[in-house]
């Protein structure tokens, strides 16, 4: 992202923002889809996220990181905020971490596409989904997740494993 383009985006130039949106819309939307239960919720999240991104362009410093990382974080935060605003409850139950292993044949990997995985994630309960996304996709630690979601680290772990278990069961059906 060159400085002129960034400057135009910061000034709120519609054309430049449109270009920016075209470039990043898929990745942003996929994040929203993973966190949301439906595409409608994802679109709401994305719209709110777009507003935050466009308004926050002035605070974006290219020297501190890539735009994609910065904007993705905003979308993720917007997803978390969406759940808080929707007052959707997270069910953080303690689960047994046994039997979470999953064996997939390399031959069957092609049968699993992004849309399928996304739909699988969407089917997860809210708590599982969020923790799974934060841990598996965003790469956060359980400690960070606990801090963000205001839960214990162990709870985050258990949520993740529970989500993993469910996803595995779904994957086994597919494969």
């Amino acid at each position, binding site marked *: 992202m060159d400085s002129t383009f960034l400057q135009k985006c910061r000034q709120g130039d519609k054309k430049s923002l449109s270009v920016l949106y075209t470039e990043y819309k898929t990745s942003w939307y996929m994040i929203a889809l*993973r966190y949301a239960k439906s595409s409608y919720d994802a679109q709401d999240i994305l719209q709110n996220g777009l507003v935050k991104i466009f308004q926050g362009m002035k605070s974006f410093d290219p020297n501190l990181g890539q735009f994609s990382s910065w904007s993705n974080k905003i979308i993720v935060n917007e997803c978390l905020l969406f759940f808080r605003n929707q007052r959707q409850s997270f069910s953080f139950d303690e689960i047994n971490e046994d039997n979470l292993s999953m064996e997939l044949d390399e031959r069957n990997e092609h049968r699993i596409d992004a849309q399928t995985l996304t739909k699988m994630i969407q089917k997860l309960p809210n708590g599982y989904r969020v923790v799974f996304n934060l841990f598996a996709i965003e790469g956060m630690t359980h400690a960070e997740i606990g801090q963000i979601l205001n839960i214990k680290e162990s709870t985050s772990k258990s949520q993740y494993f529970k989500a993993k278990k469910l996803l595995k069961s779904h994957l086994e059906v597919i494969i």
Partner: protein
Amino acid sequence: MSNYKDDFEQLFNKKLSTGTSPDGWNVPPDDLFENAFLQIESKKSSNKKPLFLLLGCALLFSAFYYVFKTQKIIQDSQNEINALKIALKNETPNVKDQFERPLFKTSKKENKTTIEQDNNKVTIDRKPRNKTASLNDESTIIESKNNSRKKNSHIQKDHLINTYRIAVASNRSTSDNSFVMNIANDKTQSKNTLVDSQNQKSNAINSYKTENILPIKKKASGIFHKKERMPLTLAILPNNKTENHEPQKQWGLRLLGSSNASSFKMTNLPPVGNQMLVGYDAFNSGLGFEIGLSYNLSKKQSIIISLGYDKIENHSLLASSHNYNSDNIYNNASNESQYRAYLDYDSPLGFSTQESDLEMKNLNLIEDENLFMAAMISQELDLVSLGFTYQFKLLQKSKFVLSANVQPSINYILKLKNATQISLLKANDLVMAAKESQSIDSYQSLFYTAEVGLELGYNYSNQVRFIVNSSYSHSINSLRKVQASDDPSTYLQLINVNLGTVLRF
């Protein structure tokens, strides 16, 4: 990738990081961008609202503050005036008296403070004082007593004055340096003299002393300063503004129709033979009109330049006697008997010699018989006048305006029509009569008048004012030509009632 147990996250990361799917399932609709952009724009505009609200609040606050401050100034001024009145009533010693007061007569006040003085030593407490208050409070002697802070500083001021006097007096009499030092400060033990202390302001001892001594003179000037800053004018200004709320039009075109009543006033009218002129001082009506241009000099004053036309009449009766002379009888072309009489008479506007042919009504007349002759003299004047009016507004209530006018004017007699109706009577019987018109050339065609009047106006609108005015004018010089001081003089008296309008622009 045989075991996904360890690479579970990797699977999701790998799969979910793929780009746009050909079927477009992970492509958001474009209206999301439009909606988001519109949302930003609307937020921008809504962000301006608090700014305007803040600005409005600030203006409102400023207005309230201004009103409050103005009211406070007015109230303070009123209090000061009231206090001044009370002080004057009670014969409160003025500021000068305060300064000239004997040194030790303020003991009552001094007892209230921590000043201690003996023969050679005065100790003043070091209570911090409000310099500003001290400077100003000289004038508060005659001000409101409500301000206790001022009162205290006033007491403090008295102490300082006394201290100064003690110091000066003592310095003169004893030249004791320690005296001044003691006055200055207990903490500082310097032995400077009073003179030194005044010259060396940087000295710690003298700094207190100079602070206390030098402002005394300033205080004296501060009195006047205080009076100067009395905010009376500030209090009055807003009222003036409200009075001037109605815009004043500078120019006005005046159109008036007038009805007048005129009469002549004659002096030094000598008897011409047995003639007697009467009735000239009776008022006779006439008509006229006036057109003028007015200009407002100020809110209350205006000048008017006007051109007027008046038609005035005067009827007088000349009583005389005539001796019948049969030689004056002749027959005219119609074979009617005519009596030719020669009549010399003094009319209001001049002497006239008239030859009249009278129609004989009664022929039974004796030669040289004395007949009563009555001549009705009618004089009509067409006058034009150029007037310069000074108008002063006396009062204004609602839409009505009452003004006083003063007007000197130059008048010119355009035309004089002199008509005489002569009758010769024997006892009460008319024997001869005639109507004649005779020119008179012994009058002044140009004369000056002075006029005073009242005008009542009704402001129908900002542009239109209906007026009715009444004026009395008197000629300054005679309408008759006067060659000697004892010559008969005729002055015009004119009462005008004008009705018209002023079109302001």
